[in-house]
């Protein structure tokens, strides 16, 4: 392939060898990246060109320039390479003066090509960068458009603010939520939006967020709308940071929960107030009382005035219940009026019993003066219908340091003291006397007898049907504990469970009921298979708080062979409202085992709807008092049904099965069915009965099916 040799072959070969070695060498070894074929072709072509450039006459610089260009194209661009080539091409033998010419021509070709290639590469990378940037901008525009659409059409209210608390932008839903115009909100300050009912701590949380100490918080918060109305929202505020983590903006998302909140408030009011007199009720009283014991200051004192009207029963019996109720309402009004200046809590405990709680009592004298105020207030006759009725009262006064008593003991002592006041001749107040207290325990004999009653087999369990409202079929039974008391006859749980809980007897007793109920349920399953009902067992708050419930249940289930899915434990709201982590863990462990949980007596406790969401419960039983009240002509029946309907729809939202308790008529069953309530329990569907009666019912339903 070479031109005819004019020089000694050995010299030509020597040069070609040195040239090939240079291209294969390590100086600026871009060559390693060339395939052997490419490199071979490059060496051959450049060797030939150089051979001609070195030997042909006249000297043609284009040949050497091309070699320079070829090397650059092959990416031999290291300046060190240029130096070596310039040196090598001038190696003798070479015509006179050709060396510098040849080297110069090579350098020209190398430099021009390198410059062109550099410019070309710069241009192409710029073009690539521009293309990429345009692509990114288009994508950014598209994503902004999507975000904008999301922002504009979201059902949830969204507002964006800066770190100084200025509202920068709001979406239409937020504008609507506030009943305002966009310009009313944008530019306003977030901290203008305080409301007196703001949860304590919400503004601290906000300050922490703004300063970057926390990334988000969530809270239920009220706002004033433009028209002055209040809107309750579930508010989530998040901090937006830049790439380096520096806080940039805050984003608030507000969901209107006013309806839910109002329902909850109504339930809470109903649960904590006496419907007849409007006074706080028993639950509210105990709530306040127990709060005193939570974290008492050293030396903190409390006072109780336990009030019972004298001769109320006579008035009730002779003038009728209506007059009795009117009298109670009048008494409540008198007492509330007289006590208002003192600021003490007045509650109606039930019947004709009232109580005054002195939360920060300064001593016995203060409690006694409250008792006197009470008696004074009732000294003048009261107008009831056409009658002027004089009604007296007796007051039991207890005044103690918080540290020396318990809520139950304090109430019991006040009650006993009242009893003594009655015995001593009515219309008077009596102060608690520990010495005399011991003599009056007969009323609490139940608690003494209870432990031995267990050993003597005085307890037994009845079962009450829970039926599907859709077709009346038996779906579950509730186990109800009974005590066949040798003196008092058969007692229901209402009459002794509170005492059992107080004394701790509830622990062995609760286990015993679980064993009985699970054993019975398992025997139904063996006998009737799938037609056997689920069994519901009540669990007291004390049981859920004590360790060992989970192991007890597990042991009983495995001992009786009952499928955990056939056991539902009924817990009361009060057992879970003040839920500590431990009892919550107990509940989760039970559910993890396959046992289901239902909230019993819903509507009688605090009815905090938001906790329902967080509890592992699958059922909710609407307290009998709701349904029972629907029979009461004095009650606003429409409102009652609205509340029940609200509870049912809320429970369904949370995926809970709803059982209505104390359903006594077909009319109520129909109404509940129409509302979508799932199950019902009450005399209309069957009273609590012996297990044999339930067996008969299951067998019968099997026949008719």
């Amino acid at each position, binding site marked *: 392939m070479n031109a005819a040799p004019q020089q000694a072959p050995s010299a030509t070969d020597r040069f070609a060898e040195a040239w090939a070695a240079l291209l294969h060498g390590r100086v600026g070894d871009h060559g390693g*990246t060339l395939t052997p074929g490419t490199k071979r072709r490059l060496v051959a072509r450049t060797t030939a060109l150089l051979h001609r450039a070195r030997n042909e006459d006249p000297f043609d610089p284009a040949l050497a320039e091309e070699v320079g260009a070829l090397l650059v194209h092959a990416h031999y661009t290291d300046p060190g390479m240029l130096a070596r080539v310039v040196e090598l091409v001038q190696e003798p033998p070479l015509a006179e003066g050709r060396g510098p010419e040849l080297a110069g021509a090579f350098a020209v070709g190398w430099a021009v090509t390198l410059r062109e290639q550099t410019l070309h*590469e710069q241009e192409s990378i710029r073009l690539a960068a521009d293309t990429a940037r345009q692509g990114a901008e288009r*994508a950014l525009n*598209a*994503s902004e458009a999507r975000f904008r659409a999301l922002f504009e059409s979201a059902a949830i209210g969204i507002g964006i603010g800066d770190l100084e608390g200025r509202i920068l932008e709001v979406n239409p839903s937020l504008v609507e939520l506030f009943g305002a115009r966009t310009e009313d909100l944008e530019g306003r300050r977030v901290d203008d939006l305080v409301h007196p009912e703001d949860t304590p701590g919400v503004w601290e949380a906000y300050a922490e967020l703004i300063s970057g100490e926390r990334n988000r918080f969530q809270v239920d918060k009220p706002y004033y709308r433009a028209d002055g109305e209040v809107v309750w929202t579930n508010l989530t505020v998040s901090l937006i940071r830049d790439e380096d983590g520096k806080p940039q903006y805050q984003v608030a998302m507000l969901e209107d929960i006013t309806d839910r909140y109002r329902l909850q408030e109504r339930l809470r009011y109903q649960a904590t107030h006496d419907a007849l007199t409007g006074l706080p009720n028993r639950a509210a009283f105990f709530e306040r009382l127990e709060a005193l014991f939570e974290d008492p200051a050293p030396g903190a004192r409390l006072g109780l005035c336990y009030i019972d009207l004298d001769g109320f029963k006579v008035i009730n019996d002779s003038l009728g219940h209506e007059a009795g109720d009117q009298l109670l309402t009048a008494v409540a009004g008198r007492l509330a009026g007289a006590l208002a200046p003192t600021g003490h809590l007045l509650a109606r405990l039930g019947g004709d019993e009232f109580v005054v709680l002195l939360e920060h009592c300064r001593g016995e004298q203060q409690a006694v003066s409250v008792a006197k105020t009470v008696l004074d207030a009732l000294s003048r006759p009261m107008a009831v219908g056409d009658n002027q009725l004089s009604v007296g009262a007796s007051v039991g006064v207890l005044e103690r340091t918080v540290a020396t008593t318990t809520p139950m003991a304090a109430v019991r002592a006040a009650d006993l003291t009242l009893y003594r006041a009655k015995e001593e001749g009515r219309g008077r107040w009596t102060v608690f006397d520990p010495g005399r207290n011991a003599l009056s325990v007969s009323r609490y004999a139940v608690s003494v007898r209870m432990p031995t009653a267990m050993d003597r087999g005085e307890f037994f369990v009845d079962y009450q049907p829970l039926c599907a409202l859709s077709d009346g079929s038996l779906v579950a039974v509730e186990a109800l504990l009974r005590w066949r008391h040798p003196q008092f006859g058969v007692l229901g749980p209402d009459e002794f469970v509170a005492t059992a809980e107080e004394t701790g007897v509830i622990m062995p007793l609760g286990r015993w009921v679980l064993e009985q109920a699970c054993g019975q349920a398992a025997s139904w399953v063996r006998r009737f298979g799938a037609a056997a009902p689920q069994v519901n067992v009540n669990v007291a708050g004390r049981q859920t708080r004590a360790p060992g419930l989970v192991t007890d249940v597990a042991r009983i289930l495995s001992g009786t062979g009952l499928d955990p899915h056939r056991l539902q434990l009924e817990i009361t709201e009060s057992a879970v409202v003040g839920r500590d982590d431990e009892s919550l863990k107990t509940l989760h462990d039970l559910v993890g085992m396959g046992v289901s949980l239902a909230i019993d007596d819903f509507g009688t406790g605090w009815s905090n709807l938001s906790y329902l969401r967080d509890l592992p419960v699958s059922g909710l039983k609407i307290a009998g008092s709701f349904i029972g009240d629907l029979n009461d002509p004095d009650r606003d029946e429409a409102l009652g049904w609205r509340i029940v309907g609200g509870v049912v729809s809320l429970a369904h939202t949370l995926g809970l099965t709803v059982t209505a308790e104390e359903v006594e008529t077909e009319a109520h069953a129909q109404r509940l069915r129409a509302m979508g309530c799932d199950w019902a329990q009450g005399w209309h569907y069957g009273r609590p009965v012996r297990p044999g009666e339930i067996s008969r019912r299951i067998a019968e339903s099997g026949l008719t099916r």
Partner: protein
Amino acid sequence: MSRPKWVPAGTDLDKPNAARVYDYYLGGSHNFAVDRAMARKAIELWPELPDIMRANRAFLRRAVQYMAEQGVSRFLDIGSGIPTFGAVHEIAREVTPDARVVYVDRDPVAVAHSRLLLKDDPLSEVVEADMRDVEGLLAEPAVADLLAPGEPIAVLLVAVLHFITDEEDPEGIVRRLHSAVPPGSMLALSHAGLEGRPDQAGPHQDLYARTPTPLTMRNRERITALFNGFELVEPGVVYFSEWHPENPAAVEAHPERMVGMVGVGRRS
């Protein structure tokens, strides 16, 4: 690290970019002042870097050639950067003229550049994807097409896994790629090794820590473990120049000074 698909990647030209820095090391001009500043700083600290990069490029060339000779005609080059010269399709086609190549990179500039370069090549595709989302990468139409016939493919992870931090789980990424490719497929991998120049590892990683692509150098054991599920081709995981040298003289006296460890494996 993850962002929703609809949020665009930035093209931040104020920060040096590994692909363009690499181009500078190789003597190219597909780079900007920030890239050159970073590269010069790196070279000042570690003068052999350009040689290391060339050795890496040379390994890529030999590995592609080897795999093409083994009969593989489908190539998936993940972290292809700016394939200016000695690109996979050019090398492969010296052996197999109809070799198909899919180039994958997550840097939009590198991708745009590759597209400009390859717009007239019907057998090459360029995909913008991030290997940290392997499923997303495999779901890209061009990648799915490459895999569709079920023929063995060659996966190239050349000088790319050291840009995956331990938290981003490089082993997991390779494992998922392994399960996605048919038997007979091959994996070629190069990775910055820790043992070769322990004195340089710290400062060099510090330098890359400021870029969008921080560097994690790993030891031989970790690099070998990346081949789990692949049968390593002789001589196993070695330094650049020790892998299938074209002649014995090409292996320098201290191959470990080039720090990069490489290997090729076959999925059985």
